[in-house]
Structures are given as structure tokens and as C-alpha cells.
């Protein structure tokens, strides 16, 4: 009996960068380091996508400065993604960025059968708008709650408390470099390694179809996160040509 003409499809895995493009990112090569780290992570993401064909990896990016805007608006298959450099200038409308992402995570357009999305928030400073409202909007969305939310602080001026609120409750007992806490990138090398980890190891974990019991306690991770790479250096170490 011939197989029917139905559409079978892999499950979408949405990966979203939320990138701080405020004026302070222009200092000390931070913007260049971020662009380079993301660009260099793409081959690894393509490899992860190839090794997990049941998940269709789709990338988008939001930039926020005086306002938030889509840098890559359309969910783009990672194989087709060409990274266009972000530019720095303005303040830090992080709250608006979170609201933009919250709208994108509503159903529709989010697919019912999607895998939990991965959100990576990267910032070097303090939000200048109503970030609490943005966080509320994001976490009010079911897909916002289910998302794997990571945060990378560039330098020592980022608001770690806001980044922690974005991630969710941190682990009470655990190293400071737990994935459930903001990752502090003190230089381009560590930033690149964190971006690489988020875009490959975490995406690989998120690609695995495994169900979880609902309703889950708030402290339960939606996806068990892989360990951080062991060679990540403490941000206070002087490594690399520039330290933020």
C-alpha cells in the first residue's frame, strides 16, 4: 500500500540572538568581537543541524539600542544564514527587545510542534527602558517560559540581576559559571567560546526529543544544559589583547 501524500517534517528549533548595540559596545572592540564570534559559530551550528536532522534549526536576531529592531527578522535556516555585522550606537532598549521576542513566540506564529526555542541575550550595560515590562511580556508567553534562556555579560558593567531574571532562577549550589547564571565574558576569547557553546552544545541538547513532566517546578530546567567548556577562563584573568 503506497505511503500517503502527507507532509512529514522535522520540528522547528528557533534560535534567537538578542544583541546589545548600545554606544558602549563600540568601545574596546566589543562590537567587532561579538560579530566575529557569531560569524565564526555558524559552521558549528550547521554541523549540529546536520547531525540532528529531526530538528530544523532556524536563526533570528534582534538588535537593541535606542529602540529594538529585527536584525534578522525571518527564521532563517542556519545553512542559509549570512551574518551581517551589527553596528553600535545609542542607549539600551532591552525591554523593547524582550517584547519583540515575546510577540514572536506567540502561537501563531510559533508552531505547536516546535522544540523549545533557545534565546541568547548579550549585553554590556544597564537597560535604559522598562525591562521589567519586557520580562513580564516574555515570560507570559508559554514558549517564553519553555525557552532555554541564556545570557552573556560582556565586561563588568552589565546588569547581572536583569540577566539573571531573564535566565530564570539560578542554582543555589553551583559554580559561578553555571549555565543557569549569566556567563561573564571578559574578553573576545571567552565571548567566542560562550557563543560557540550556546550555538552548538545547547542547540544539540535542545534538538533531542525528550518529554518532561508538567506542570514542572519553577526550578526545573526545560532542557538539561550541557556543561560549559572546561577551558573557559575566569573573566578577571588577563587573556587576549583586550579585557573588557
Amino acid at each position: 500500500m503506497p505511503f500517503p501524500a502527507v507532509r512529514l517534517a522535522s520540528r522547528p528549533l528557533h534560535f534567537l540572538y538578542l544583541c546589545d548595540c548600545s554606544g558602549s559596545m563600540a568601545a574596546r572592540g566589543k562590537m567587532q568581537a561579538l560579530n566575529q564570534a557569531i560569524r565564526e559559530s555558524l559552521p558549528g551550528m550547521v554541523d549540529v543541524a546536520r547531525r540532528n536532522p529531526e530538528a530544523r534549526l532556524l536563526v533570528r536576531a534582534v538588535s537593541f539600542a535606542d529602540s529594538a529592531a529585527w536584525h534578522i527578522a525571518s527564521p532563517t535556516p542556519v545553512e542559509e544564514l549570512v551574518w551581517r555585522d551589527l553596528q553600535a550606537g545609542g542607549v539600551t532598549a532591552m525591554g523593547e527587545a524582550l517584547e519583540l521576542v515575546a510577540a514572536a513566540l506567540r502561537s501563531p506564529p510559533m508552531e505547536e510542534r516546535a522544540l523549545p526555542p533557545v534565546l541568547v541575550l548579550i549585553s554590556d550595560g544597564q537597560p535604559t527602558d522598562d525591562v521589567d515590562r519586557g520580562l513580564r511580556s516574555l515570560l507570559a508567553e508559554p514558549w517564553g517560559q519553555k525557552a532555554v534562556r541564556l545570557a552573556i555579560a560582556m565586561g563588568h558593567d552589565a546588569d547581572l540581576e536583569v540577566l539573571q531574571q531573564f535566565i530564570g532562577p539560578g542554582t543555589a549550589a553551583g559554580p559561578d559559571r553555571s549555565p543557569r547564571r549569566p556567563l561573564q565574558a571578559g574578553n573576545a576569547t571567552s565571548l567566542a567560546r560562550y557563543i560557540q557553546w550556546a550555538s552548538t552544545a545547547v542547540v544539540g541538547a535542545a534538538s533531542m526529543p525528550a518529554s518532561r513532566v508538567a506542570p514542572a517546578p519553577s526550578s526545573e530546567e526545560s532542557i538539561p544544559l550541557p556543561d560549559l567548556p572546561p577551558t573557559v577562563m575566569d573573566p578577571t584573568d588577563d587573556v587576549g589583547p583586550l579585557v573588557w
Partner: protein
Amino acid sequence: MVNGWDPPIACSRTGTAHRRRGTPCQDSTAAATLHSSDGLPVQVMAVADGHGSRQHPLSAVGSRLACEAALLAVGRELGGRALAGSATPEGRACWLRWLAGELPAALHADWLAAIRRDWVERCAAGAAGATEPAEDFSALPYGSTLGLVVMTPLWWGCTGLGDWDLVRVDSSGTAQLVSEEVLEPGGGGDRTCSLCQQEAPTLCAGRGRLHPLPPQSGGGSFALVLCTDGIRKGCATDADFLALSAWLAEGTLAGEELAGALDRISAEGSGDDVSVAMATFRPGAAADLPLNRPTPSVVALSGRRPGRTWAVGAAVAALAALAAGVLALRHRPPPGDPAVHRLVQDLCRRTPQEIAGTLSSRRRQFEDLRRGRSSAVALRSAARQDPLGALIAASFAPSGPTMGERPVADGSLCPALREALRRQWRQLDPPPSPPPPSR
């Protein structure tokens, strides 16, 4: 065919993602023909999906034990209840309460007891997965969903918890989703309810449903397709899922063909384990049944081994043995055993060449019987594990040179099967002695 319901077909396949990673299949399926206390046959089918995440390392075991517990609980509960009263609204309300409340509580208790036994055995044996002392037993490692459909001559119903789906396909091929898990609006992701939750019996209440069947003179045939979430999540849209369910329900897929279809669904879809159990209702097909049919028979129970499909003889035997203490089974050897009935129906749908090929593969059994190396009684007693062996044994007449005329399966052999059996026996008969030369 039993009382309007075809015996269910059930199949589980390891997902392509799991095969690639070397993890076992987390899904299980089961199907059985049981009986109520007033002797009416009841078809039962179940699917279960172990969670498979790091917190649930024994969920493959949990899903298997969930299916076993479901069949045991239904069989035990049915054995103490008469179905005749469920023709009235009051009677059906009582059965709905059973589906939504009493049955989930019973099977949850059975499941907890089964996983506790498994845990104790693992701790005693130092087996993988049991890293804690026996006294630190928890249901969490065994977490699994469970979907269960009960099909009687007068109604059918479902219960359970988790992200399984139940589709009804009518005779025109129109498919309708009749039961699904709804956790929250806007998407459930991969969150689901589980037997490992303390409130599992309460969570089943929301999925408990009872649907009366039309009188024999009215209504058309329809099929029920019960599946784990791997199938629906492998489809691009729900419309594709319903169309796929309708195709699966056409009833022509079985065995390797069904397994191949499920493999394709996983490979081109979500990569998850995929399981399906299906049954068809045909009104007007009910037969007058004696009221005191004693013997439940287990049709199929899928195992946990990667790539394993269905009708696992060892698992069937184990489940039958497990059920014996509860149900006080009285074994009825063939002829007339339902497993042999079904085998005969299946064979008689095939071509004469296929029938002959099937029997030829058992050439050794024919020889052993003819030469006294095996016992026809023993083969017939093991009908559930080896229905074909029982059929061959039933066709054996030790005192005669040709196939005995003992009726098999109430004379329901088709001519092609009967002839193929005769041919096998004729090949073992000694050649006739040549006539003495004439003088």
C-alpha cells in the same frame, strides 16, 4: 473478529534519533481480548511513552510496565463487572466513572507496585539505573505516559494521561481527533503529564470518555487509532496527522509493512519513538456468544528492545503468567483458541503461494510430529506463543497417513490453507509400495 471489533493491532518502533544515539525505545504498546463477568469479550489496547530525559533513566521500563498494568487492571476490573447493564444511560454513567476514576486508580497502583518490584530487583542485582539504595525508591525514574482504549460490544471508552492522541476514522475515511492532551493554550512543547506524578489518577479524569455504540442495525464501521506523540509531532500539520491516521486505519498494514511505515514517519518527521494501536468496529458483525467464555488472551505486547515490533511471544507468555494469579485464567487449548483463529484469518487473506511458503518454513514441526519427536498436545497448549505450531498440531492425525479431519478453528480454514496443510503431510507420507510385477 470478536463481537463487532477486530482484534487490535499494535506496533512500536525506535525513533531514528534514538537509534543514532544508541538509546532504547521508550514506547510500548499492548493489546488484548478480555472478558467481562457476563462473558462478553472486550478488546483493549494501550500505548505508553517513557519520558526519556535524564531525570527518567528507567522510563523505557516504566512504559512497558504501564502497558502491562493497564491490561491487568482492566482484566481484573472487568472480571468483576457485567457489561449487560451498560445499554442504559445509567449503566454507561457507571462505566464512565470507572474509566475516569476507579480504573486509573487501580492501574496506577498496579504500576507503582510493578516499578517498585523492578527497583528492588535492580538494587539487589546492582543493575544499571539503580544508583540509589532500595529504600530510596521513587517513581520519577520510571516516568511514562499511558493511553488506554477499552472496546466492548455496547460502548467504547478511553482513559489515561499524557501526550498520546486518539483518532476516530469513519468508513468514508474522515478522521477526527477525539482525544488529545491539552495542558495550556499556545503550545505544550514537550511537557506532559506522567504516571510518576502522585496525582496521576486524578489527571486521568480529564481523558476519561465513553462513547455508546449504535445498535447493530444502525451506524457505520469506524476505526480507532491510538498513538504516542512521535507520530503527530512528525507531521507538518494536524491535517497531515489526521490524513496519516486515516491511512493507517485502512487496516491493510500489518507486520513489517506497518513497522516500515512507522520507521518512515520517524525518519522524515520528529525522530522520536513512534507507536500505534488500532482497532476497527463493524456493526452487525456481532456473533451470538456463549455467556461464560472464561479465557482472556493477550494478543500483543511490544518489548523494549530497539527496533522490536509486536506480538512478542515471550512477553505474551510473561504477561499471561502474571495475569494468572489475578484473573484465575483457565487455559483452553486449541482448537478454537483466539490466537489460532486470528492466524487462520490472516493466512486465508494471503495467496496460496504465501500460505505454502509459511507452512514450508515449519517443515521441521511437521516432521517432528510425524516422527513422534514432538507432542501435538504440547504444541496446542502453547497456542498463544506459537499459534502456527498449534494449527499444525491440530491438523495432525497420528493414526492416519494423511491430515486428520479434526476441525481446526471451527472449520474456518479456507480451501487454500486446507490444501497446503494436506500437501505438507502428504510429503511426509511413505510412498505407496509398487505393485508386484505381474507374471
